[in-house]
């Protein structure tokens, strides 16, 4: 590669430095790089990489050492907020989807057993959903519902009766194919439900309490809020820091 092209690439890397630094030292930086290339017979490409790495490291250091301009402080805060927001929403979605794993497995298992000829008596109510212990556990309940959405059998009760999600959800699930829903039968009882339509018109439903997952989501939200606060403090610190002007030209 020709030397002037190498120098042009190096000159571009000088934009990594703050404007004031660049204006103060640009000619000297280019002169030092030019002499370094002139001195060598070969290995110019490798020297360019060394210079670019130097620009990246020292350029970022000079930027950190220089107070941010208001627009840059706003842009930095906005970009960091956006990134953290996307990360928080993604993490929240991942945690929420974890709540569907066990119900999905339970539904598949029960549907398979029913398909092999078992009847609804495979489900006997043994647990109470409204118990705090159950709500804080990772237990699942399962139920079989007729085409009208009325419960036929279930492995748990809600205040002594079979859990009874709104009947309107069942035909909608058959129409939309969306098999995962959140059901809140009462305050503090929130369940992640998975529904599978059966060939005979019935439905198999399995659910798990969302309480343990909502706790994890709360912890995540707190972590991201703290991270966001730290980012804003860092941007504010860079903005309000005392200016250290570059040494004046003589």
């Amino acid at each position, binding site marked *: 590669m020709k030397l002037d092209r190498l120098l042009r690439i190096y000159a571009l890397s000088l934009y990594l430095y703050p404007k004031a630094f660049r204006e103060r030292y640009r000619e000297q930086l280019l002169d*030092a*790089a030019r002499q370094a290339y002139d001195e060598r017979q070969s290995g110019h490409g490798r020297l360019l990489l060394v210079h670019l790495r130097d620009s990246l490291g*020292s350029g970022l250091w000079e930027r950190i050492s220089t107070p941010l301009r208001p627009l840059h402080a706003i842009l930095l805060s906005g970009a960091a907020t956006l990134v953290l927001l996307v990360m928080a929403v993604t993490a929240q979605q991942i945690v929420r989807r974890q709540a569907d794993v066990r119900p999905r497995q339970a539904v598949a298992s029960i549907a398979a057993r029913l398909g092999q000829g078992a009847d609804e008596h495979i489900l006997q109510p043994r647990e109470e959903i409204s118990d705090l212990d159950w709500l804080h556990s990772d237990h699942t309940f399962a139920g079989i519902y007729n085409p009208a959405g009325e419960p036929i059998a279930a492995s748990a009760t809600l205040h002594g009766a079979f859990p009874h999600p709104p009947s309107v959800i069942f035909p909608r699930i058959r129409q939309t194919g969306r098999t995962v829903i959140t059901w809140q039968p009462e305050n503090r009882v929130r369940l992640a439900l998975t529904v599978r339509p059966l060939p005979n018109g019935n439905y198999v439903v399995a659910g798990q309490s969302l309480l343990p997952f909502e706790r994890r989501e709360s912890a995540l939200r707190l972590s991201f809020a703290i991270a966001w606060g730290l980012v804003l403090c860092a941007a504010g610190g860079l903005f309000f820091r005392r200016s250290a002007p570059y040494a004046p030209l003589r």
Partner: protein
Amino acid sequence: MSTARTSPEDHLPLTPAVFAILLALADGEKHGYAIMQEAREHVSMGPGTLYGTLDRLLTAGLVVETGLSEDERRRYYRVTPLGRRVLTAETARLQRAVAMAQDKGIRPIEVKA
């Protein structure tokens, strides 16, 4: 570094880059590339690191610019009396550290920056 620091000890310990630059200027004024060439004997240094460090040394009053080359592309730098005292103090500090290491049986090996 701040211009308010006037005692050489206030500037210690020096970073390897600062020490290498002051040492390069100890025997007379030099321009940036000459400093970088000599400093590379001790520490890996690119142009950006050199001028960033030089700027802090100028601000701290350890180095001054002495003028321009004939083609006005190169600026020359000289160490100030304060800069020389800082270099002397750092050298003494390093000598004490080396002596302590040798007392503990540590022997130098050939090291290339």
